[in-house]
């Protein structure tokens, strides 16, 4: 499975991209969408909500199950991908394009604690055993 090397990851299968303006974009990984199957619903946090790292902040639901999405780092929600409300299947089509929300990080250094592509690959390998 191709894991983009320009992103950061969490053990709970979120991806994180640091943007040029200092904000971060967050979604769920290709592996997560494969596990869940066809998406039918996404509940995304409101703009302005302040999140603590690892706080439950969104829910994606597939035909199979509901899965919580956790804030990879602390910050304030600055944008949400409202397209997913009517078309949650975008996550299945391209998990790394179908972002859920953007955060203004409380502390950009929090990003250093996240996994890189190689580290996330190891998480997937250990889950497979």
């Amino acid at each position: 499975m191709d894991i983009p090397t320009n992103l950061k990851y969490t053990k709970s299968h979120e991806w994180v991209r640091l943007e040029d303006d200092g904000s971060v974009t967050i979604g769920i990984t290709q592996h997560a969408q494969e596990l869940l199957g066809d998406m039918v619903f996404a509940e995304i946090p409101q703009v302005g909500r302040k999140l603590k790292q690892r706080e439950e902040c969104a829910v994606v639901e597939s035909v199979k199950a509901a899965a919580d999405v956790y804030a990879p780092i602390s910050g304030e929600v600055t944008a949400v991908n409202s397209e997913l409300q009517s078309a949650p299947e975008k996550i299945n089509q391209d998990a790394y394009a179908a972002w859920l929300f953007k955060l203004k990080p409380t502390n950009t250094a929090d990003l250093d604690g996240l996994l890189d592509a190689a580290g996330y690959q190891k998480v997937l390998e250990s889950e497979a055993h």
Partner: protein
Amino acid sequence: MLKTTPLNQTHRAMNAKMVDFGGWDMPLHYGSQLDEHHKVRSDAGMFDVSHMLAVDIKGESTRAFLRQLFANNVDKLTQPGKALYSCMLNPQGGVIDDLIIYFLTESWFRVVVNAGTADKDMAWMQARRNELAPGLEITPRRDLAMIAVQGPNARAKVWQVIAGSQAVTENLKLFQATTFDQYFIARTGYTGEDGFEIILPATDAANFWNALHAAGVAPAGLGARDTLRLEAGMNLYGQDMDEAANPLESGLGWTVDLKSERDFIGKQALLATPVTQQLIGLLLLDRGVLRSHQKVIAHHDGTEAEGEITSGGFSPTLNQSIALARLPSQVSAGDEVQVVVRDKMLRAKVVKYPFVRNGKSLI
């Protein structure tokens, strides 16, 4: 070690996502559960249901034995090939399993039971046989495979694949079966669409499956099977009823024959137990997805009553979440109820089910 059906390698060759389904290694989907669902509603799909068990019951007193064993009345089966849906109850009136009975001859009935309950069912049937009709033979048929071909074009595709089968099966009514060569062909299903359920020798299963595929029948997994049966308002054993549930509180009253003089296992318990709940449909009005075990709160004449979702999910046909729920009897279609979904209370409308039949919304 998971149990496998005769089609296991075939599923893997078709890139199925395999899951542990009650100890069986079964296909969940072959890419997209939603696509498979729509294909069955609009064209034709096929399901490997070989994990279910066909059981042959043979001997002169078979009908008399089944009269006592099942809650539905086998005396409704007057024509060879006719099928009947029934529950098998324990003496407390709880549901041991739901099954289909086929009347073949006076000395041969075939019963098809659920996979997860097959061992328990066999033990129960054999024990009752030993008490009530020791001369009967009860034979599990693990030498057979079962393939359900479902959808508006399903029968035509089967006719295309089994040369000569059209003449003998096109006049089958719903819930009727016949044999043709090595095939046992029944006009039954678990999707709310037309189609056949076909029982055949396990050794022929892969060839038949591949021939159906070549004829344009889409393989469909257990995921689509569940959303299709939920839309069709068909009970799932273990969710909508089990040994702790009263069939009369599980939407199965129509299958329990309490009118005839006949006694059957569980009848006295059912007659002695007041019915205070019902199985009814829910249509989610807010955004989200209903799931089994979520709590339902109903308001009726100023009092609050609770119930529970037994089966819930997303309906691909309605593009909305639906559920079956066990609610107090006084709740009726048209009422609005609340469902506790995680930390929220979502609004749902009480509706009669089925939700979908023959490709069309009934809501």
